[in-house]
């Protein structure tokens, strides 16, 4: 079933330089910690779990490495949304990096909420090295959410 579909299905992706509303595809930047979430993405790969092709991954050692400025800057330069993912609480390879990360993320989250900025563009999650399907599922969710929000003009057409 799967192999025949491969050749039958043709998908056209919008040229990346000119974005119009009709052919727009969300582009999402994902910061993944090396030890859990990146490994979870690898497992999704090895298990051939299909998910939307809209995410570009940036590998960092730990979710604790992620400065909120990375997230804000990503939105400013035009990424349609940002996904940040680390180890589940307790699983951090560096003992506590994800706990500090969680505090920073909640600040950012509340700030967005308070300023009335759509929070859908900033997504935080925990994905373990054993959660390939969960990773794919979260990518699907975030992509769908971003698609509904439309192109990121948050900091563009102010």
């Amino acid at each position, binding site marked *: 079933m799967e192999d025949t579909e491969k050749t039958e299905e043709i998908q056209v992706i919008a040229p990346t330089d000119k974005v119009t509303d009709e052919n727009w595809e969300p582009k999402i930047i994902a910061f993944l910690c090396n030890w859990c979430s990146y490994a979870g993405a690898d497992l999704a790969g090895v298990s051939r779990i299909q*998910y939307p092709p809209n995410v570009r991954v940036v590998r960092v050692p730990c979710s604790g490495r992620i400065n909120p400025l990375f997230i804000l800057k990503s939105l400013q330069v035009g990424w349609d949304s940002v996904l940040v993912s680390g180890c589940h609480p307790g699983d951090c390879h560096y003992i506590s990096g994800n706990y500090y990360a969680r505090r920073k993320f909640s600040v950012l989250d509340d700030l967005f909420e308070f300023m009335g900025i759509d929070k859908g563009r900033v997504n935080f999650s925990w994905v373990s090295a054993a959660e390939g399907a969960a990773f794919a599922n979260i990518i699907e969710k975030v992509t769908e959410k971003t698609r509904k929000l439309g192109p990121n003009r948050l900091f563009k057409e102010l």
Partner: protein
Amino acid sequence: MEKIGAVLVIGGGIAGIQSALDLAESGYKVYVTEKTTGIGGVMAQLDKTFPTNDCSMCILSPKLVEAGRHPNIELLINANILKLDGEAGNFKLNILRKALFINSEKCTGCGICGQECPVESIDIYNEHMVINSAAFVKYPQSVPLVFSINKDMCIGCGICQAVCKAHAVEYFQQDEEININVGAIILAPGFDEFDPAPLQVYGYGKYPNVVSSIEFERILSASGPYSGMVLRPSDGDIPEKVAFLQCIGSRDVHHAKPYCSSVCCMYTAKEAVIAKEHQHQVNPTIFSMDIRAYGKDFDKYIIRAQDEYGIRYIRSRISSIEENPRNNNLILNYESEDGSLISEEYNMVVLSVGLNPPDDAIKLSKIFGFELNEYNFCKTDHFTPSKTSKSGIFVCGAFAAPKDIPESVIQASASAAHANILLHSARNSLVTKKVYPPEINVEGQAPRIGIFVCHCGTNIGGYVDVPSVVEYAKNLENVEYAEDNLYTCSADTQIKIVETIKEHNLNRVIVASCTPRTHEPLFQETIREAGLNPYLFEMANIRDQCSWVHMHVPIAATDKSKDLVRMAVSKANKIEPLQRTILDMNHNVLVIGGGISGLSAALGFAEQGFMTYLVEKTTELGGHAKNIHASIEGNNVQEFLSNIIEKANKNENLKIFLESEIDTIEGFVGNFETKLKSSENKENDEGTLEHGIIVVATGGEQYQPTEYLYSKDPRVVTQIDFEKMLFESKFDEKVNKIVMIQCIGSRNEKNPYCSRVCCAEAIKNSIKLKDLYPEKEVIVLFRDIRTYGLKEKYYREARSKGVMFLRFEEDLPPELEKEGENLVIHVDSPNIGKVDLELDLLVLSVGIHPPYESNEKMAPMLKVPLNDDKFFLEAHVKLRPVDFATAGIFVCGLAHSPRSIDESIMQANAVVSRASTYLSKDEIEAEGIIATVDISKCSGCGLCIETCAYNAITMDEEKMVVEINSGLCKGCGACVSSCRGLAIDLLGYTDEEIYLVINEFK
């Protein structure tokens, strides 16, 4: 006789891996043989681990990868031992490597063979619950990631050979015999799960909804057959009522499994909790006899399971299960504690199966010539718990007795310590340090980037337009060269990469292929051979993140690949060579505490020739063990103690400081300086001790009871007092009725933990009494009898000798009353209701608690944490049980948590091995990826110090700026992102590099 600086480890489970890593890091060549085709053992099958609910694979896989790529470790998979010759220090082995039919040198682990294989077979890793192919890999994260053919299933169609672009399939591969020469052998063959099928009463194998606990573990796993949903096999529905039956194949004399399997109580609680977490509809009930939550923080877990997750515990042993054929539900009939008969219907039943010796235990013992014990576990001595009966052969993990992961890891290191002690003269003799060409100085050079894009057979090339990615890459900034390869990781491509770097003068290299988590070290190695610093390398993961997951949208997958390559180029333009800092390593050791743990550890170091300072605050060595006469197994503790003290006193490398305490400790791993403080009546002439390692063996204290008229009535004593009476013939023969009360000062609000040893103490003393005076009456009042592991035997012995056991509930403790001169105890037992017991002697089983004051003082001095109960808290509960997060500091014995003498010795030995990974080196090489601080920007606010889990950052009080100790930094970057002034950066993942990658939005 010449000693061989190599060690063979049998078994690639967590214990075997830990031994191998310890020894490989301590300068020995290590061979690991593994029966199956991948290392990881049972831990790789687990979903979560108790009591922290850590994700098993998350914490295990870095160790697997490390073992897989360690230059001193050679993995021999699918291998069996045929023959052993020689003796301790110089063994010769004959090993059979069974054919895999796929050349593991050539196999890239791409998995196309498995996909194309027409045979649907079963998946052993997933406990037969889903299908797999005849050409298979054990599990997706397996190390080594090589496929093999299950010859029994294979029909020999030849398709896999046709589709394998790496030409790795070799149908005529033969079994191969190899010979190796090692100095020591470590047995870590693990355990087999008890097979409940022959016990027909539980209907396992007959009723679909009766599963074993290991199957349930796979059900819970996100990568398991049900994707982590709790479903029942008969119809895929969520089972509301799930019954867990404990002690299946444990504590069961009828089925020749009389011992306790040690881990089932906890893993069952964990499985119940996780099931509830995964599916809120599930309501677990656990049927158990005793709840044996004896380990560190275990009881808290059980309490949480009951209070927070609403897990129901019923004290009963189920005798049989029937199926309701209408709905495949299961009917459980049982007798409740008060004797009434109850019948309940459950949607699913999980059998908590026990741990059996491995099926090849007898074979192993014959080949190697070591003895097994009565249950076919490996026989060990109480005081040398990791040595087999044969010299030079050591044992660890569940093969010595059923045990959990941290205890296995402890014993793994302990057995490695024995190998260290045996072979230290041959250390570094068989490990070869690879010589690389001198590094090319690329400073000031403009980046010249070379890109290698991998087809991975058809794994990438079949979905991503690789040539177009190459063309695209050629036009990116500073890209000098780009090409595509069928397999970029193959041996011939490595040669090609080296040549290309030279030919085109490349100074940055990017490989666009698979995941850097497994392949980055390989390519870094390659570019080092071309004279480039290994950090001048980047990877774009276009397989795991593009071709494999966007198979149906090839154009999008190609676009994404281009983006990932562009982002990698962007980062590569800024990457700089990184140097690993070299720190001096002082080879002296400071051991704090002169009890059995401290003594054992100190001797382990001294016997390897390391100068060891042993600091004891009292006037004599021996610690708590001075009060213990015998172990429950009947071993003479005093004799052992005096032997070990004599050995310590005689050893030239061991310097003992009695009546001394630590005044100050400064420095870090390899470079500590300590000042001692002696008690008033002793002169201090020691000055400053310089050492590279610290061992905390500060012990525990006995709880001083205030309850039950203790110290008010002479007829109320502690177990230690009672033991003294019995063993020193001071027992008053007029005493006829003895009552013991367990859990005094343990498992209560103040000390919520179990003190672990008191049940065995009570039973040991009861048996001793019965042996001396069979007519005396002993009643033990208990909450749970926790004679875990092989100690269960003595619980049975006590009962057979007439010792009575009566259970009480925590909220209805026995009450002692003085009626005139007589002592009467009122008990309200769930078994028999209220009874009054007259007694002549009341023995209190008092618990162990940490020395609160001294621990509170010591912890900040060492910059190491305490847990809620004020015991020292190790770096990782499961996999780093004797390490602290701060490098170079270790913990063992009661300082860690309550434990018995053999367990303390094991931990002390483990510390020796862990510390030897440092001590074996003249200098320690720190990580290249570390944080650095720009002091011109640092305002000294100290936020980074707070966020550092490794105490790598300190404040320069003079300049009021921080300093980062590159030897302690692990490179997580938590400090970097918290610095408001952007004064810290993380080499290898700098702000600028990430900024540029972010800016690659197009």
